[in-house]
């Protein structure tokens, strides 16, 4: 079982603590930068919900494109981790901020850019009940 399990653990812990043990809908954004395996994530969430006694209805996973913006020249671009080698992609999978070690602004070459969206897993909406 890969590290999607630990992401799911953190997520369930938080959701149960903040919204209680009955969740009707859990909507998640899955930023493509982190190359999360959605099938494994969903499996982990369902398994952990059982372990933590969380009654979980619909779980909706939505892909979010990774978009970066250069802090130096303002250029905005879409980033596809599929263009990276396997080893680098795996490093970013564990630690998305590692992308700053491997990527530069395609226009001016600066490493000073921000991840506008699509970093990794985020809670978009929780409907208790």
């Amino acid at each position, binding site marked *: 079982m890969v590290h999607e399990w630990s992401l799911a653990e953190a997520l369930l812990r938080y959701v149960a603590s903040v919204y209680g043990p009955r969740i009707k809908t859990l909507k998640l954004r899955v930023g493509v930068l982190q190359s999360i395996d959605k099938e494994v994530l969903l499996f982990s969430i369902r398994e952990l919900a059982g372990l933590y006694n969380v009654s979980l209805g619909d779980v909706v996973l939505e892909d979010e494109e990774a978009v970066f913006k250069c802090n130096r020249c303002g250029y905005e671009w879409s980033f596809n981790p599929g263009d990276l080698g396997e080893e680098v992609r795996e490093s970013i999978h*564990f630690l998305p901020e590692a992308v700053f*070690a491997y990527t530069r602004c395609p226009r001016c070459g600066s490493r000073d850019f921000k991840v506008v969206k699509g970093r990794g897993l985020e809670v*978009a909406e929780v409907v208790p009940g």
Partner: protein
Amino acid sequence: MVRLDFRILHVKDKLMAVKKTYVVLSSKGGVGKSTLSSLLAFYAAERGASAGLVDLDFTNPSTHIVLGVDPREVRYVEEKGIFPALVGKLRYVTPAAFTRDSPLPLRGENVSRALFELISILRLDGLDYLFIDTPPGMSDEHMDIVYRLGEVVKPVVVTTPSPLSVSSVRKMISLLRESGLREIFLVENMGGGGLADVFKEPGITYLGYVPFYPGFDNCIGSLENVRRCPLRSFFESIVDKLVSEG
């Protein structure tokens, strides 16, 4: 739309499962934080404790240099998270393994995200002692640790006897106290024990000193160097005090 960092509770759970987590801090640069955190953790492990070291100096990690570890060779085992790598008996994590030791320029919010992401995926099961190395200053990593994780970590403040360093860490200690941390440990590095009296105050536990040693570079850079370091007993004396504290 809700934008939440859902990792915080999980990170607290992880650190609470460790018997004692020490965060090695100093507002002053160059006082030996990385050396101290690396050697305390390594000697604790060598003495039979289940000890770990996590380097949270994301933009300039250096504990791997102290321990003589090539970050490009570090491989973490993945099983419902990632297990720290074994360096001798020490369980070790460095962000340099994810960057292959390339420069990692990060602005503040990215430091915070990296910190919570990294700790949240770590498998710290069964650890008795965890040492966390931090960069100098009082910035993002420190704010996150002090204000969000203060209840589950114990600060070990490092200073040299230099008035510049002492003055700087006094401000840090004041901030730690303000934020509710009542138990602060202090280590005097490159000194002779004179700060024991200077910091004789309620709430501060002086753990000891490590003397200045001109050949100290021979104490780092490989596990053999670390094992044979002539100052080892000074570090071990500090380990003993940490292990025996309640």
